[in-house]
């Protein structure tokens, strides 16, 4: 295997008192689709900003496409494509004009520009809308155009920071179809962040990040297999009593998540009859789910991703404000 597309060693970023990234290590192989999964405020965007040369690390080092992000900013910039959470299109220009602007800024050879524009527009299904002003585009179309633009200069690594944030489920699914189709035709490493578990499933490997630290890195399958347990959620007439009885009588540690008594056991389906025998409280509903990435997240961090976002992790706006200083 050639040199890794992204290599990170001991990367740390502090904003005053807040430690946003606490010494992370990462290797992303060339051609890989790598997902960075974690709640808002976990340090995903900060890490991406450092990798894209938009922020400086407080300590540690990182290289992208073989170039150090702190020393060779221009070399790194010309080899990466970026799609940010916030839109960065000029809506008073047409799709084509936005693409041409990008191509000129990134030094795409003139003789190649036209064909490359045709290619990327085709990839995201915007060929017949290419001469429309972007302000007439829907949210999903804009995001597709940004992805096309990120690919225009044939980058080595494409960074997608929450590529589907703020889009409705149907549009999100469509965007993912385009992202996955890319891999068949583009020689590009994709590095994306998300806090949607189901999106992380599409990645070759994912890193779970929480409170600025990477708690696990592996393929989604391996991460789920490592959990080995099913998740059981029950609704009862007395949740507190249920938690206590589960602990006393079945030696199962349960906790309240999303308003339900939640616990993990191997072979969840065969556990259910024992549940009814052992508990004296009334059980209204039982749900048994095969391990998901959400369970993986919970296994490593002790909370669901939704708990984490409601908890006291630093709010991303605070980090943003601190970063502006």
């Amino acid at each position, binding site marked *: 295997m050639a040199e890794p597309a992204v290599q990170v060693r001991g990367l740390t970023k502090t904003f005053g008192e807040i430690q946003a990234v606490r010494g992370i290590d990462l290797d992303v*192989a060339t*051609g*890989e689709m790598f997902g960075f999964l974690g709640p808002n405020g976990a340090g995903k965007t900060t890490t991406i*900003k450092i990798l*894209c*040369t*938009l*922020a400086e690390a407080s300590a540690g080092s990182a290289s992208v496409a073989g170039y150090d992000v702190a020393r060779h*900013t*221009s*070399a790194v*910039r*010309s080899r990466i494509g*970026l799609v*940010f959470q*916030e*839109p*960065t*299109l*000029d*809506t*008073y*220009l047409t799709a084509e*004009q936005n693409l*041409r*602007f*990008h191509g*000129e*800024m*990134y*030094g*795409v*050879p003139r003789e*190649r520009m036209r064909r*490359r524009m045709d290619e990327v527009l085709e990839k995201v299904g915007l060929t017949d809308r290419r001469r429309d002003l972007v302000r007439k585009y829907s949210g999903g179309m804009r995001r597709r155009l940004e992805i096309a633009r990120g690919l225009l*200069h*044939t980058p*080595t690594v494409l960074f997608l920071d929450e590529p589907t944030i703020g889009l409705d489920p149907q549009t999100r699914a469509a965007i993912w179809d385009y992202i996955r189709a890319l*891999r*068949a*035709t*583009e*020689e590009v490493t994709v590095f994306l962040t998300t806090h949607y578990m189901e999106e992380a499933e599409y990645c*070759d490997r994912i890193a779970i990040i929480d409170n600025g630290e990477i708690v696990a890195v592996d393929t989604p399958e391996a991460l789920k297999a490592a959990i080995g347990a099913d998740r059981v959620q029950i609704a009862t007439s007395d949740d507190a009593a249920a938690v206590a009885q589960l602990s006393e009588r079945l030696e199962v540690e349960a906790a309240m998540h999303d308003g339900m008594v939640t616990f993990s056991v191997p072979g969840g389906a065969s556990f259910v009859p024992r549940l009814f025998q052992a508990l004296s409280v009334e059980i209204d509903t039982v749900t048994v789910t095969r391990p998901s990435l959400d369970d993986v997240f919970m296994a490593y961090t002790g909370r669901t991703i939704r708990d984490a976002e409601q908890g006291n992790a630093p709010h991303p706006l605070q980090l943003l404000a601190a*970063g502006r200083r």
Partner: protein
Amino acid sequence: MTTTTRDPSTAAHRHRTVGGPAHELRAISMVWQREMIRFRHDPARVFAMLLQPLLFLFVMGTGLASIVDTGGEIDFRTFLFPGVLAISVLFSAAFAGISLVWDREFGFLREMLVAPVSKFAIIVGKCLGGATAATAQSLVVLALAGMVGVPYHPVLMLKLLALLFVAAFMLTAIGVLLSARIRQIQAAMPTSQLTILPMMFLSGALFPLANLPDWLAILTKLNPLTYVVQPMRAVVFDYLNVSAGALEALDPAITWFGWQLPIGVQILVALGFASAILAAGIAIFDRSD
């Protein structure tokens, strides 16, 4: 890892020419072109911006003509014309520069700042674009020269356009400088007005810089715009029959400690101011915006 089918044509073009002067030039030209595209799409703005100079020239100029003594040789509106021409580029040029605040708000600034080009290329492109658009707009005012007794001599017209471009470039650079620090759209307009109005009044665009009290004379000499407006008036008067006395009263030379600055030097001072403002804008513009 999964294997993927590569598109050979993409791999063949991995080697780009990024970072050289040719690439920087392409970037400057592209940023300039974007200003042109947006200028063409917004004709309403062009006309709104022209209303103000026309009010100065025909309403204020005509109203004051009866009480202002220009010595009888020259109509007050003829005197005003070069100043009003300069005013016609001030606001649109400054707004073109300050539009970076909008670019930041709507995200496009980031698209520019993450590109593998220098801040210099982005800001120079922006200033050239704003200056070109503002100068093009002032053509409408220039076309009215005949109505106030200024001859349509081609050389005069070209000289005026060149000076207008210098003024517009300077003002766009001022707008860029302001936008580096202004974060809020609501603050952009009032701040630029607050900057432009004193420059306009202290440049001699609306009254001759003769026999001024010392404090006012000093302020006019510190004003970068003075060094464009005065040459503009001088080139216009070159094409009119003006007696030495009237010239002394209406278009006194700029002096530094008793030394009369030749027009060439005045223009050099203006270019020096413009370059300094541009350099300051590039220096304080934050790459991670």
